[in-house]
């Protein structure tokens, strides 16, 4: 299938696919079972320059954008959605620095992130602030030339593994979302610790932890943008990162589809391959059609974002909602094609079904995504009416 990629994009896709096939797939089940963070794969990705693809050239990147990031995430996710998240989660943490970092921030962090020497993370969620992100309680108070942080973030991807964290905090509790700010916190900062690592349903090779701030002192230069812009920075970051989640979903779904087609061809019942039964054929046909549609929407969203378009929230949410719902449907159907074997850990599709679920939940649940899309539709309608 021709996706109208440039020669360089094809190169990126091929290289990521090679790594997925040769390095990720053989270890995916073991890393999932034992919750092993894929430091070895991160190193391979780093040496292959794949962390560079979405970072500007002046910071040691290769000057691509969201589409390049998506191509890598998709290929890796075909083999393991959890291992792919170590990469995608770092991209999520890198985006706010690219979008809102000062020249100093960029010079300090982007070259190392591009080289894959360090990973990044993004921390918004708290125990009592999930979809209602404005309910965060983590405080940052300015004392002389430092912010002092107190509070707990929860379920942070790459927690403990990343070296640099964009943390959304309250700088002015009286102003609601306008009182939020984004602050860069380095691992190793005094008063900044990691809490428990979660035991998850899927993407188990990914590290998800608490971040605990107890009088953590951070230089005031670590503020991203300006005070009060925290919520805006979070939303603009998600606009760019959601196609990454969509790609993770597309990759997982494609991986499951490939396994299902191969299995349907091999498995015989009633003296014939099960792929000769229309009930299986129609299921495979629908799965393939859905995956292709999800990929098309995801690439479209990424291309629109990379074109520099302004209003990208809607298309970005659409890609994430659609692709993640497809991933859930397709992986569930893949288990169905495998029958009882699909329910067993010896076969890869049960893991894919577990991995797919998260894509409907994080970076905004699909309900919240639909809310954003609908709100945008209503706004557009109102604008038409003037």
């Amino acid at each position, binding site marked *: 299938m021709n996706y109208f990629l440039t020669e*360089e994009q094809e*190169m*990126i896709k091929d*290289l990521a696919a*090679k*790594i997925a096939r*040769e*390095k990720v797939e053989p270890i995916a089940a073991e890393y999932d079972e034992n919750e092993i963070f894929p430091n070895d794969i991160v190193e*391979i990705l780093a*040496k*292959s*320059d*794949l962390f*560079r*693809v979405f970072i500007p050239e002046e910071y040691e990147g*290769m000057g691509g954008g969201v589409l390049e990031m998506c191509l890598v995430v998709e290929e890796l996710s075909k083999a393991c959605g959890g291992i792919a998240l170590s990469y995608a989660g770092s991209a999520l943490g890198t985006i706010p620095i690219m979008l809102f970092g000062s020249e100093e921030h960029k010079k300090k962090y982007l070259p190392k992130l591009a080289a894959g020497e360090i990973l990044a993370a993004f921390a918004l969620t708290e125990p009592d602030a999930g979809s209602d992100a404005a309910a965060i309680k983590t405080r940052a108070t300015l004392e002389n030339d430092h912010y002092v942080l107190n509070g707990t973030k929860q379920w942070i991807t790459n927690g403990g593994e990343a070296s640099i964290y964009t943390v959304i905090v309250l700088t002015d509790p009286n102003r609601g979302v306008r009182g939020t700010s984004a602050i860069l916190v380095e691992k190793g900062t005094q008063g900044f610790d990691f809490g428990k690592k979660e035991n998850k349903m899927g993407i188990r090779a990914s590290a998800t932890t608490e971040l605990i701030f107890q009088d953590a002192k951070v230089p005031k230069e670590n503020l991203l943008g300006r005070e009060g812009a925290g919520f805006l920075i979070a939303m603009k970051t998600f606009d760019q990162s959601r196609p990454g989640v969509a790609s993770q979903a597309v990759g997982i779904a494609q991986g499951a589809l490939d396994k299902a087609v191969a299995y349907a061809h091999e498995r015989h019942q009633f003296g014939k391959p099960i792929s000769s039964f229309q009930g299986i054929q129609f299921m495979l046909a629908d799965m393939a059609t859905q995956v292709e549609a999800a990929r098309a929407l995801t690439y479209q969203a990424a291309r629109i974002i990379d074109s520099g378009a302004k209003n990208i929230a809607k298309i970005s949410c659409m890609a994430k909602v659609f692709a993640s719902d497809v991933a859930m449907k397709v992986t569930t159907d893949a288990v169905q094609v495998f029958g009882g074997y699909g329910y067993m850990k010896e076969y890869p599709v049960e893991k894919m079904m577990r991995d797919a679920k998260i894509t409907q939940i994080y970076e905004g649940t699909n309900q919240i995504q639909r809310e954003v899309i609908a709100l945008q539709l209503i706004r557009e309608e109102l604008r038409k009416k003037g």
Partner: protein
Amino acid sequence: MNIVVCIKQVPDTTNIKINPETNTLIRTGVESIINPFDMYALEEGIRLKEKHGGTVTALSMGPPQVEESLREAISLGIDDACLLSDRAFAGADTLATAYTLAAGIRKLGGADIILMGRQAIDGDTGQVGPGVAENLGITHVTDIRKIEQIDEDGTIIVERLLEDGYVRLKIKLPVLLTVVKEINEPRLPSLRGKLAAKKKEIVTWVEEDLEIDSERIGLVGSPTFVKKIFTPPKPSGGKIFQGDTREAVASLLEELKKAGITAGKKGSEDGNN
């Protein structure tokens, strides 16, 4: 340090098929790859350069499409690549190939270390490496599993894999080494490397560029005559020992003893795989 790595482009035998009627390889639709053993030679060459400095050049003889494999070598970190390609070189056996490659290396200005894979997966002879060394009049050691050190005085210490162990050797440079897969884990290409490889000019030399005797190259210079290639017939007959495992093993051993295959009471130990 001047390092040359000789590589061969081969059909990817992991999915190769033989035409049962003609007993020849079905080459259509089969992807070409760098001979897997040569990947270890390339990796070792790059590592030596990273450690000791100098340049590492990849050299190959073959049709123009081999350029692709040489570009792949560049994308891994090889500095330069050179292709010996001429109709006159075609049809070469191991003798003519070794002769031609040696002429290429001479034209490159020689080398301190020449690295090659232990054998090519299509021909499986393992003859070209030693042949190149003989043509150049230098030492060669096959089946290297480790390059331990290279000293200022121009000596190299290596470990050569044997069937039941290894031998440690100290040799004077220049030397030609053929490597086994135990030597390292080849790296994957990088994007920057791939972009560099795309732009890289690959030198191609034809017969006239080399100082060679035209009687000793290509088909003319190849005394090897392939009489027949065939898939060995599947072994037939055999006997299945059934029933209780203990009894089955006992009767198997009995039969083996009768046939004179097992010797004493000591069971044969499985060597390294």
